[in-house]
């Protein structure tokens, strides 16, 4: 089982991101479960959503306490919520920011994890560029696909098409593709460094 926890704020499409991820997993023949943290959703309030991917049916209903991957849609949460809680030592982190882990003050924290699995992605910038609105969720899923290779960019795109009308879908797919390329490039640079 591969478990993903997504942190963000109400209005950033956190719950939708988990749902899209589950649809992408389903399209690849996996069993997938997505669910929100069940808050009374208020714009700007911290929101958590969860997604599990597995090759067999998923019965477990507890929140994801030890994620294999974390997607953090809003870096201002780093100082408010225990976003890294329970992350496995081999875990992946994607943070939506144009800054680096060092610039975020996370250098010491990051030293406990595998550096090639820690990514920052300027997903809001990609969303604004392609979509005109600061909704980073789709772009981050593109980045997630590149970073973890748990699902393909094609499945993410198909899930987005299933959920949204064509125009919105295509803009989000473009943002996801740019984030995918961005993360792939980071991975290649790290490998050759």
């Amino acid at each position, binding site marked *: 089982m591969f478990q993903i*926890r997504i942190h963000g704020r109400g209005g950033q499409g956190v*719950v939708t991101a*988990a*749902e899209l991820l*589950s*649809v992408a*997993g*389903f*399209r690849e023949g996996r*069993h*997938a*479960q*997505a*669910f*929100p*943290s*069940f*808050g*009374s959703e208020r714009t700007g*309030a*911290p*929101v*958590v959503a969860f997604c599990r991917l597995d090759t067999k*049916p*998923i*019965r*477990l*209903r*507890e*929140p*994801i*306490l030890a994620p294999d991957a974390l997607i953090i849609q809003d870096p201002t949460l780093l100082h*408010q*919520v*225990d976003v890294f*809680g*329970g992350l496995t030592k081999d875990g992946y982190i994607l943070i939506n920011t144009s800054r680096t882990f060092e610039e975020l003050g996370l250098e010491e924290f990051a030293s406990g994890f595998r550096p090639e699995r820690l990514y920052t992605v300027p997903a809001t910038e990609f969303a604004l560029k392609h979509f005109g609105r600061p909704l980073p969720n789709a772009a981050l899923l593109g980045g997630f696909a590149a970073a973890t290779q748990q699902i393909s960019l094609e499945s993410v795109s198909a899930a987005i098409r299933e959920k949204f009308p064509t125009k919105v879908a295509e803009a989000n797919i473009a943002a996801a593709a740019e984030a995918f390329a961005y993360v792939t490039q980071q991975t290649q640079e790290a490998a050759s460094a």
Partner: protein
Amino acid sequence: MLKQIEGSAAVAESVALCRPQVICAYPISPQTHIVEGLGKLVAAGQLKPCEFINVESEFAAMSVAIGASAAGARAYTATASQGLLFMAEAVFNAAGLGLPIVMTVANRAIGAPINIWNDHTDALSQRDCGWIQLFAEDNQEALDLHIQAFRLAEELSLPVMVCMDGFILTHAYERVDMPTQEQVDAYLPPYEPRQVLDPANPVSIGAMVGPEAFMEVRYLAHAKQRQALELIPAWAGEFKRIFGRESGGLTHTYRLEDAETVVVALGSVLGTIKDTVDEMRAGGVKIGVLGISCFRPWPTVAVRAALAQAKRVVVLEKSLAVGVGGIVSNNVSAAYPGSPDNVHTVIAGLGGRAITRGSLQKVFDQAIAGKLDPVTFLDLDYSIVDRVLKREREQRRSGPIAEAILRELGVVAAKIG
């Protein structure tokens, strides 16, 4: 057809396949997505003939369902929590009149303090109202149970409540196998009412009944529920024949072979319990699970048979009979052939408190070691409770309890579990 969709969307599609003719709806979380989904199908002309009636309250929703059902229509509504309480009088009336209405209850806590999250207090508060109450373990079962519910309701002329855990199921995206219209039509024939308001053949429904006949009418409601104990497994069997999968029935058993400890529960928490039991079985612990799919009528014989070999029983329930302890466990104790001292009540998940494998294993281990209290509150923070009690001893005007606890806890939504 396999689909990856939200639980509420799956239930809406499934209800639509049952061809309801009147849907009355009043929004309340976490049920709202279901009736929104049905509303869209009616508006798009994909579900017809069907009248979708927006009403002004839950009391109106059940009243309209009663009127529609009495007029011979297949009627459906959905609610949760305070909504169910607000319609309570009409809920009893629907059962007392013997009208085969189907209602989804997206289980949610009851206030005060107001809480929108999941537990079973709402449905269990109505356990003696005369409705059949079925509980879904996952979204596949939730959608399947609705199809069975219409068949059962109309066969018995009794209303059926399909209970599914609010948010945990209603808002979860998971894989479901959506039946075809042909399959549902083969299982569920058009509604043939036992009683109908028909101007060509006038009757009155809902007469006042005095002491001379009230006992008999009530007894017949009880007798019909006893009949349901035979029909529910039969209709689940017929369901399997047409749809090719097991769903519904009275109970589900899991790894009961040689089990000395049996955990009893309702609803979606059974999945987490089964995963915990698998881990404990791998360590050599003889433990199994009894899931209650049908809570009303209470399946005494099936429960007794499932628990016959159990040395101890742990009833894990998302409800609390304040001043007593468990509600489900009272029913289980009455059916358990062993000593009631060996039935432990674990109250868990009230108001959406997460139920984790770690906490479950701890409490099951305690039961096996003979160290579990008769009534336990899973993951209760006694330090907070003790501080409140201390303050109440020391100060007359100790203030509102909920607000004081929230102040002590600090930032909300900062915790993940």
